[in-house]
């Protein structure tokens, strides 16, 4: 919906489509200047951080998974990392590898969903993948095949595709046999080829010339592209801190206009997490095949154009299949599916790279294992200021476009981030101040 009054021009989308969760967009232009931009969130609050208080330290993997049906494994991983660190648990490499495989399954499922079903329709001019399927059935069939493989991996390792039941502190309830995992290899090899085709396909899309003005922040993992764990946070402007110091460098503020807890870096400003940050800060840690395809399509080793995040996601997809192949190839079933994690009083921090970016958890527990406090910062809360800043700069340079086209392109600006509004545990009810 758009309307003009005098020198004021307002662009509004009341209910954003092809994003996870409920959000709206509001852009106000006065006399040729963008005055106000809001990615408004009307997903009601669910109070996870409040009701986690008083629960047992063993429960966050199951409970916080319910924050997001699209990336439950991210929540399980970040919460396990945080609580295991309080309790001083040492996780064996074999279990860590299995966690990485499980997380690759989630990346595959989520990235294929976003690339083909949520994002590509924007570039190809369709309202949905369902409409896309009518014209290019083989493309959508390929996408569904690729996505299903991600879900199948999550089902075998995690028990089920949404809210996996097999993840616990210290590891798993049951670990798969070597044979169960080997059964995936042939499909993974084919899917990796299809992912290479995906990179080639999406790199032919037309991308607006646009670079975001924010600091890129990602998790750093020793010698590996960051996925299920990491103890340091790095940025393209020199940040290099322990995740324990997250609270000293990042803060959440409660702003009325957008009704969400906005995250920002203290004394530094807005930042972006997600595929662009991960890739730009860790491209050297990708596998040879992923590096090769990135070079083939001319991606470079840094990318700051959020529209091109679809290419980065596709490269990460190649990598996720490749990693799954590598992990399965060297997999030995652990002797025990989990290590014991005994409660210990203290505060623990845990991070992982959800498909849409850094997910931070912090828990304080007492000696009995009761949770005293919980803090969860999902990627979309961190990206919201960046999305709004993108919208502002993007609209300012495109005021010549008519309202319909401009609104449509603004929606794309938002979808570039694959925002997961349901993830926003502490997003608020909306009261937009409209002038």
């Amino acid at each position, binding site marked *: 919906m758009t309307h003009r009054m005098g020198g004021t021009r307002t662009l509004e989308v009341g209910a954003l489509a092809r994003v996870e969760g409920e959000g709206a967009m509001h852009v106000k232009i006065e006399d040729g200047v963008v005055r106000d931009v809001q990615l408004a969130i009307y997903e*009601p609050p669910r109070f996870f951080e409040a009701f986690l208080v008083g629960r047992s330290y063993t429960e966050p993997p199951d409970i916080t998974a319910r924050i997001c049906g699209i990336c439950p494994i991210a929540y399980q991983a970040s919460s396990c990392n945080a609580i295991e660190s309080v309790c001083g648990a040492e996780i064996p490499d074999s279990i860590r590898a299995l966690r990485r495989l499980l997380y690759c399954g989630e990346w595959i499922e989520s990235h294929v969903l976003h690339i083909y079903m949520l994002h590509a329709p924007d570039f190809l001019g369709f309202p949905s993948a369902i409409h896309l399927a009518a014209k290019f059935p083989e493309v959508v069939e390929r996408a569904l095949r690729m996505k299903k493989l991600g879900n199948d991996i999550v089902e075998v390792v995690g028990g089920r595709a949404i809210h996996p039941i097999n993840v616990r502190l210290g590891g798993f309830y049951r670990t798969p046999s070597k044979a169960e995992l080997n059964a995936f290899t042939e499909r993974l090899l084919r899917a990796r080829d299809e992912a290479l085709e995906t990179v080639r396909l999406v790199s032919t899309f037309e991308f607006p010339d646009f670079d975001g003005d924010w600091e890129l922040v990602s998790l750093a993992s020793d010698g590996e592209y960051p996925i299920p764990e990491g103890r340091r946070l790095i940025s393209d402007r020199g940040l290099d801190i322990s995740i324990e110091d997250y609270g000293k460098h990042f803060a959440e503020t409660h702003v009325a206009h957008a009704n969400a807890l906005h995250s920002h870096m203290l004394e530094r400003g807005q930042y972006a997490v997600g595929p662009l940050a991960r890739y730009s800060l860790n491209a050297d840690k990708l596998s040879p095949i992923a590096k090769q395809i990135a070079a083939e399509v001319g991606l470079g080793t840094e990318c700051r154009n959020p529209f091109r995040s679809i290419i980065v996601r596709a490269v990460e997809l190649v990598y996720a299949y490749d990693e799954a192949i590598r992990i399965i190839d060297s997999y030995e079933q652990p002797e025990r599916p989990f290590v014991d994690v005994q409660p210990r009083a203290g505060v623990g921090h845990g991070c992982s790279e959800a498909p849409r970016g850094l997910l931070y958890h912090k828990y304080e527990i007492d000696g009995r294992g009761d949770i005293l406090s919980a803090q969860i910062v999902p990627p979309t809360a961190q990206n919201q200021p960046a999305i709004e800043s993108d919208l502002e700069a993007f609209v300012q340079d495109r005021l010549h476009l008519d309202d319909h086209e401009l609104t449509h392109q603004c929606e794309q600006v938002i979808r570039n981030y694959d925002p997961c509004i349901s993830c926003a545990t502490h997003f608020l009810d909306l009261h937009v101040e409209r002038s």
Partner: protein
Amino acid sequence: MSEATKPKLAVWKFSSCDGCQLSLLDCEDELLQVVGAVEVSYFLEASSAIAEGPYDVSLVEGSITTEHDIERIKEVRRLSGILVSIGACATAGGIQALRNFADVREYTSTVYAHPEFISTLKTSTGIADHVKVDLELRGCPIDRHQLLEVVTALLSGRKPRVPTHAVCVECKKRGNVCVLTEHGTPCLGPVTQTGCGALCPSFNRGCYGCFGPAENTNIDSLTSALRATGMQDRDLVRVFRTFNAWSPAFRAAGEKVAAGGVTQ
């Protein structure tokens, strides 16, 4: 079938994680067949194309947590032929119904610097507490095979086959060793409705009640059996108060333990 004569399907979201509607997109093998048989008229997560109601079948995800939700669900009901509530949030208020046992004002100030910005109801409740629901599909999340069964049955005008017996029965069918009696692992299988295929016990884990209470079960007897495994009362209250905490049977069981009502 032409677009004009295809049944119109709508998918609605209230307070939730999006997982249950994602189950529809997770039916990779059947998705194109399903969307070929219906007109997907309103499904914001998947499509920006919106067709006006009325809708023949509405799938409703999520719980009611705001005044606006109450108005919106009435409108959805008005626009819908058959209304199916899907998942633990829509059928029992979901995990966010834990606020129902607490003071929501305290919750608000725990999470937010400016509680005055927040507008929320004191409770999170299922759809049937507000409008007539034609069919409920349990689970946190729902099982996608059950979802396909419901959609297929409704399209062909027959009654969907959704079993209501306990997880225990499913375990016996699968030949699982009982984790409760053999391993002493706390398990809600005897009182939880099936739908998952006894997933947790098949992974050496006790059932934790995703599908909510089954009909005609003896929760008191399970409570005693759980105590016998060494569970303390506060842990007992916790197991009943998760994703289906506000379902009448689990709510009563939790309250009874909290009040010290079950002894043995």
